[in-house]
C-alpha cells in the first residue's frame, strides 16, 4: 500500500470518529429512554434543540459587552456555560416528552413527532442568520508529531479532538456501568421489562422515568451541542439531518446495549464518512448513491438480517401505578 493510500485511510478513520460522535450520543439517549420503556423518536428534535440553544447562548455571550454578574466572560467560561444551557434546555425537552407520554398517556411515537416538529419550528423561527460568535470549542490536545513525522497521521486520528469527543467515549463506559452495575440501572431495566413488578417492590416508576428522560434529553442535547460548538461551528436550520433517527437504528443494532451501540455508531460513521472521502478513494460513483448506504443498512439491520434484536418487554406502553 502506497503512502497516499495510507493518508486516505487515516482521513476516513478521522472522519468516521467525527461522524459517529452524534450517533453514539443519540444512541445513548435512546437507551436511557427506551430501557425505561419510553420510546423516543424525539431524539432528532432534542439534538436540534441542544444545537440551537448551545449556539445561541454562545452568540449571546460573544458580544463586545457580554457580562455575567458584572464580570466579563472568558472564552472557556463562555463555552462551558453555552454547553450547560444547551444540555439543560434539551433535558427539559426530554421531560416534556415524559409529561406527554406519562402524564397524558399520549402515544410515544406521536409525542416524539410533536417534539421533533416543535424543535424544528422553534429553532427555525428564532434562528438569526446574521449571528456572530467568537468561536467554538478548541482542541484538547494538539497533534504532538511534526508534519513530516511518520506517526503524524496516527496523531490526526487520536488527537486534535475537542473535549466532547473524549467525553463521549467515557459516557459509553459510564452508561454500561450505570445500566448493569448500579441500583439505578437495575431499577431502570426492571421498569423496561415489567413496571408492575418493579412498582410492587417499591420502585417509584414515574420518578425514575422522568429522571431517565431528562438524562435522555441531555445526552441528545450533547450530540447537538457537539454539532454546533465543536464540529461545524455554526447553526443551520434542520442541521441534524436525520442523525437522531439513525441513532435510533444504531441503538437497535446494538441491542439496547451501550457497547453494542458504540460499535454500530462507528459502522454508521464509517458509511457516512465514505461519501465525503469518495473522490480521494478514487471511486467513480455518483455520491448520492453512496450517501444512501447508511439508510439501506439501517433497513437491513431493522429487518433482523443481522440477528433479531429483542427490545425491553414493556416498551411503548403507558403504565398506571398501583393505587390509582
Amino acid at each position, binding site marked *: 500500500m502506497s503512502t497516499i493510500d495510507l493518508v486516505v485511510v487515516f482521513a476516513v478513520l478521522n472522519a468516521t470518529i467525527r461522524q459517529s460522535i452524534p450517533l453514539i450520543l443519540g444512541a445513548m439517549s435512546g437507551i436511557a429512554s427506551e430501557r425505561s420503556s419510553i420510546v423516543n423518536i424525539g431524539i432528532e428534535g432534542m439534538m436540534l434543540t441542544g444545537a440551537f440553544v448551545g449556539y445561541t447562548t454562545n452568540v449571546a455571550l460573544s458580544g463586545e459587552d457580554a457580562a455575567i454578574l458584572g464580570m466579563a466572560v472568558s472564552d472557556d467560561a463562555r463555552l462551558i456555560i453555552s454547553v450547560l444551557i444547551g444540555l439543560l434546555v434539551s433535558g427539559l425537552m426530554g421531560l416534556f416528552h415524559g409529561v406527554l407520554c406519562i402524564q397524558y398517556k399520549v402515544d410515544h411515537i406521536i409525542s416524539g*413527532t410533536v417534539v421533533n*416538529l416543535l424543535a424544528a*419550528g422553534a429553532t427555525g*423561527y428564532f434562528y438569526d442568520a446574521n449571528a456572530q460568535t467568537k468561536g467554538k470549542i478548541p482542541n484538547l490536545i494538539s497533534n504532538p508529531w511534526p508534519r513530516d513525522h511518520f506517526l503524524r497521521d496516527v496523531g490526526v486520528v487520536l488527537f486534535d479532538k475537542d473535549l466532547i469527543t473524549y467525553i463521549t467515549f467515557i459516557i459509553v463506559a459510564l452508561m454500561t456501568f450505570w445500566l448493569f452495575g448500579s441500583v439505578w440501572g437495575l431499577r431502570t431495566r426492571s421498569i423496561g421489562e415489567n413496571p408492575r413488578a418493579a412498582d410492587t417492590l417499591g420502585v417509584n416508576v414515574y420518578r425514575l422515568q422522568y429522571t431517565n428522560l431528562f438524562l435522555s434529553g441531555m445526552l441528545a442535547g450533547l450530540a447537538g451541542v457537539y454539532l454546533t460548538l465543536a464540529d461545524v461551528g455554526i447553526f443551520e436550520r434542520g442541521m441534524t439531518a436525520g442523525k437522531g433517527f439513525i441513532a435510533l437504528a444504531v441503538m437497535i443494532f446494538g441491542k439496547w446495549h451501550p457497547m453494542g451501540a458504540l460499535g454500530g455508531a462507528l459502522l454508521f460513521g464509517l458509511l457516512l464518512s465514505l461519501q465525503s472521502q469518495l473522490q480521494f478513494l478514487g471511486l467513480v460513483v455518483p455520491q448520492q448513491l453512496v450517501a444512501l448506504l447508511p439508510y439501506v443498512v439501517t*433497513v437491513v439491520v431493522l429487518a433482523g438480517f443481522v440477528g433479531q434484536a429483542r427490545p425491553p418487554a*414493556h416498551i*411503548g406502553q403507558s403504565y398506571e401505578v398501583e393505587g390509582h
Partner: protein
Amino acid sequence: MSIQAEASRPAMPSAPNGLNGRTLGSALQAFGQTLIVPILSILTALIAGAILILLAGRDPVAAYQALIDGALLEPRGLIQSLLKTSPLILSGLAVGFAFKGGLFNIGAQGQLIMGSVAAAWIGATDLGVPIWLHITLAFGAGALIGAIWGGIPGALKAYYGANEVITTIMFNFIASRVAEWLISNGSTDGRIRPGPLTDPNSGAVQRSRPVLENARLPVVFDYPPPADPLNVGIFIAVAAAIIVLIIVNRTTFGFELRMVGQNPNAARYAGVNVPRQTMLTMAIAGALAGMAGVIQTLGVNGYYEANQSLGLGFDSITVSLLAANHPIGIIFSAFLFGALEQGSTRMQRTGVAPELVVLVQALILMFIAAPQIIQYIYRVRVGSTGGQRLSSSWGQK
C-alpha cells in the same frame, strides 16, 4: 405484552353500518363533540403563535391579517392555497389510511418524492398518446412506485418484524438521494455522468426535464399571470378521499383493515391474514402519497426539483391526526394547512418568519394528541380520546 395493555384496547369496530340504532340528533351531538377538540386546538395554537409574534417584537394582528389576505381573500392566494391543498389531501390520506390499519406511515414524504419523479419521467417523455392517456399513465406510474415505496416497509414489518416507523423514515432519505441522483449534473470532468432525468438546459439549477404540454393537468379556472391557474388536481384529491372513505367503511377489506388496526390478535383469530393486510395497507397508503407527488409535478411545478416538497410528509401526519384520520375531515384539515402554508409567505412581509406556521402546526398536533390540556384550559368535557397504541414493538413481529 401485559394483560393491562390488552384490556385497554378498544373493542371490535362497529359493523360497516355505523349509524344503526342512533337518532340523527344524537349523531349530530356526537359530531359536535368530535369537533370541539380540533377547533379549540387550532384556536389555542394560533393564540400561542400570536404570543410568539409579540415576543419577537412584531404585530400579531397585522401578521394574521396578512396571513388571511394572502391565503384566502385574494383570488390569486386562494388558488395557490387550493394548489397546496391537493397534494396534502392525498398524503394526509396516505397517513390516515395506514393509521386506520394500526400502522404509522412516516414515509409519505419518500413515497411522494418517488411519485413526483415517476411523473416527471413519464411526463417529459413523448409517448405519442392522447393527453388523457398520458396523464393516466403518469398517475399509474406514480401510484405504482409509491405503492412499492410503501409496500416494502409494510412487507418488512409483516414478515421480518422491522418497525415501520424507522424503515419508512429511512425510505424517505433513500428516496431523496435517489431523486437527487436522477437530476444530478454529474462531475465537471465528465467521469460521473449526469442523472438520467437531468435537464441539460437548466444550468446550475438541478431539476428534471420539463413536463410536456401533453401531460400537464387540465386547467379548470384560469387567472391572469403571474398567478398559476387552478387545475383538476384538487378534484382528483377530493375524489380519492371519497373512495378511501368507501373502502374503509363499506368494504370487507376496510372492515379487516380496521379490525387489524384495533386489535391484531382478534383479527388473527377471526381469520384475517394479518401480514398480508399489513403489506397491502402500506402499499395502498404509498400509492396515495405517490399520486400526491404526481399532482405536484404535473399540476404545479412542471418538473421535479430537489427538496420541492420538503416537510410535506410530516405536515400530512398532523393533517391526518387533526381530522381524527377521517377521509372527509382530511380534506378540510389539508385546506387549513395549505392556506397556512400559502399565507405564511405574505406574513413574512410583516417581519414574521414563516417557521411560525411550523410551530403553530406542532402545537395543534400536541393539543390533539393530549386533549386533556384543552380540557384543562377551557373546562370542557371531551369525549373518550385516543387510546390507539402504535409504538408497541421495535424490531419484533
